[in-house]
């Protein structure tokens, strides 16, 4: 179990500051939900943690040490939003998963590990030779989770992993996230714009708005007694929350 700590992190693209001095802690073995609208900088913060966005200022620490953003060993892994784009269409899902494994494993060890990971995400191990096109969106997203786990990460960053899925499939992925997190004691940064989803998986919640974290704390507290008006707006916008409100 590891702790991921963002300290005064800033990211700039050209002259616009997308993330502005964000400090955030993902405690060991906990899930932190990061919510906010598009353009709030939440995805950029996630990408910075895995080296896909350049840091302009501040630091990202894993158990007190800077997160390695180059080289083979990458203890922070990411699951992307669109399962149709995040798996190479020409590679079997087994090959995609094996790619993220530590290099020192030999061929047969990799095969065993692929089978183990597929079972872990509730996919048939015999399907390692399937290509992404043969899988549904939810199944692909589970393969993407397995690939992230193949790197034996200390922390997993999940960036809107259910927003490209049908709601009927979303539940499967959310159940899996909770199950994996509990079984493996993963530390996780879970990004979503849907508060009901975040509420279901996260024990801590941070709210981002225009590049700044405006509110953070235990999920139960932030969602029940939001201190910021922006958090209240987000809460009011959760689908279904208006079911009581607007019927003629």
């Amino acid at each position, binding site marked *: 179990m590891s702790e991921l700590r963002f300290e005064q992190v800033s990211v700039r693209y050209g002259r616009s500051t997308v993330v502005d001095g964000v400090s955030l802690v993902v405690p060991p073995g906990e899930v932190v939900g990061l919510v906010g*609208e*598009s353009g709030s900088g939440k995805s950029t913060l996630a990408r910075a943690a*895995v*080296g*896909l966005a350049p840091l302009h200022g501040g630091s990202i620490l894993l158990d007190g040490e800077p997160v390695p953003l180059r*080289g083979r060993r*990458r203890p*922070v*892994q*990411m699951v*992307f*939003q669109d399962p*149709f*784009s*995040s*798996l*190479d*269409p*020409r*590679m079997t899902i087994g090959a995609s998963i094996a*790619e*993220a494994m530590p290099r020192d494993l030999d061929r047969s060890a990799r095969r065993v590990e692929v089978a183990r990971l597929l079972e872990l995400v*509730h*996919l*048939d191990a015999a399907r390692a030779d399937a290509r992404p*096109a*043969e899988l*549904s969106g*939810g*199944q692909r997203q589970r393969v*993407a989770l397995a690939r992230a786990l193949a*790197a034996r990460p200390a922390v997993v960053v999940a960036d809107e992993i259910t927003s490209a899925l*049908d*709601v*009927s*499939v*979303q*539940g*499967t992925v*959310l*159940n899996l996230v*909770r*199950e994996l997190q509990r079984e493996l004691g993963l530390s996780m940064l879970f990004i979503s*714009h849907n*508060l*009901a989803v975040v*509420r*279901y998986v996260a024990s801590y919640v941070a709210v981002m708005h225009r590049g700044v974290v405006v509110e953070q704390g235990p999920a139960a507290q932030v*969602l029940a007694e939001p201190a910021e008006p922006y958090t209240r707006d*987000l809460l009011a*916008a*959760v*689908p*279904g*929350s*208006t*079911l009581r409100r*607007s*019927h*003629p």
Partner: protein
Amino acid sequence: MAGVDGIAGVDAVSDPSRAGRDPRRASRWAGVVRTPLGLAAVVLTLALLVLAVVAPMLWSADASAVDTDDILAGPSAEHWAGTDNLGRDIVLRTLVATRLSIGLALGATAIAVVVGLVLGTAPLLLGRRAGRAVVAGVNVAVAFPGLLLALFFAVVFGVGATGAVLAVGFAGAPSFARLVQTLVAGVAAHDYVSAARVAGVGELRILVRHVLPNIAEPLIVNATIGAGSALLSFAGLSFLGLGVQAPAYDWGRLLFEGVGSLYVNPAAAFAPGAAVLLAGLALNLLGESAAKAVGVASPGELSVAPRRRRAARATPLPGPAEPDPQADAPDLVLDVRDLHVGFPARDGRVEPVRGVTFAVRRGEAVGIVGESGSGKSLTALAVAQLLDDLADVRAERLDVLGEDLTAPGGESRRHHLGTSLAMVFQDPMSSFNPTTRVGAQLAEVARHHQGMGRREAMDRAVDRLAAVRIDDAERRVRQYPHEFSGGMRQRAMIGMGLMGSPELVIADEPTTALDVTVQQQVLDLLQAIRRADDVALVLISHDVTVVGDVCDRVLVMYAGRVVEDLPATGLTTSARHPYTRALVAAVPTMDTDLDRPLTVIPGRPVDPADVPVGCAYAARCPLASDRCRAEDPPLAGDGTAHRVACWHAGDPIDVDPGGRPLAQVEAT
């Protein structure tokens, strides 16, 4: 939008394609030989290659046999195209020259491809700064005409075959490098490349494993076309005396010699000329056919805009077409009975919409929910007449705003539907023309459909943007779509629909691409429009909670059928179909019990090409019995507005001892 006829090029059939983005690669390459043109190109190219191999073996000696008694002779039975100034047979020489001509062309193409690949992939490998320099260099090189470069290199490398190969090869490299750069940039933007980077995979390995395999098809196609033009370039260079030098000879050299005696013996120039033409044609056609088969756009190819088509009147089916109970109401804006939408498929016909019946009253909001592939979007597109020519739409009745769409329609119907039916799509970016100002696009609707003047139409556009709560509409009409945020674009899209005075708005997943906060604004807006002008709304979504927020009535679709039709207020309390109940339970809300797993629906949606006998949902249903698997339940009313298609409607669903209702882990 707004005008139903106003949107061309909308990917109308998006729903089934989302279900399977399978490239079917092998069969696509095989598709090259399926067209007569492609088959001819393949045969011709193979013949050329065989000739290139065997011709010099068979005829090399004969082709260089000097016969001083018979120089510059015309065509005869012995020498079909006559002889040259040393009495050598021209046809044989042309045949033998195939190897050198083709070999040079392929050699030059290989150089162009290799140099192009190196330059084209360099930006990925070198990082941002050095990469930018390479891109700039290639851009400058592309600006020079190829022939000019070839002549330049021919002078640099010296006259002769080697110089010509290098010249043509290097001259072709910049455009190839540009192509590779573009393709690489496209693939590199995919998340799987990011994912590989995050996994610590090196750039070179990413290039070899992820990028190159995914750009191979267009590269091969363009290399083939490139070989055709290289062949022509060689003919040109040799003809100018810069290419192959005697005693060696290729087609260009033969052409050069033949032209010298053009007035004595035209056939001497004709034979090598025809060879160049045929070979160039074969390679180019092969490339073009391959491009068509594997789906690479080649310049100059026109895409056919989808034409509107009329729905055929279906013969009434015996069985489950019981009309919507409110179909007798006097103020219907939409009356659909037994709607079928089919598409031609490899083995016959698939039917993603299989008999949908519903009606919408004036001012009513009806939601249609279902998973991807349930046929909900196709139903809407069929109503809006936006399906392309491939779609086969049949209905017993398809009345939209009083127009019978199964009857032949004319200009007046287009006009009527154009102003009174509005359609809102999921992706507002692709529904606007990116190169035209938003105001002009809105104004066009009013000018086209209502015959307004330029000034009047623009005023209306400003007014409508204000009506959809876009601040500072005066300024906004002069902006381009990319200057609008996602939510604002979607509101502008709705504003476009309001340019006329719509009686029916069809919104297909209007908020799926938007954040929850913005989603709420758009839904509120649709609600307000409906209230203000008594506009009917058909809202399509995969999220049952979104639909429940806005609509009066909800139609739940599964496998191309409506399985339940119920009041929106009853979604959480009185839904009777097990599928509806599962859909509602699957969505986490702010009240979801955190100690239990979320409800999931096991299995996968039905493939429209393989619809089972009986109830389509039976395989995923906890209540399924033998009857369900044998007999498809009809959509039957219970006397109220509630209709359901289920043999076990409302039966209690067992909760297993683990406390997981409905089902647990999705089967794979």
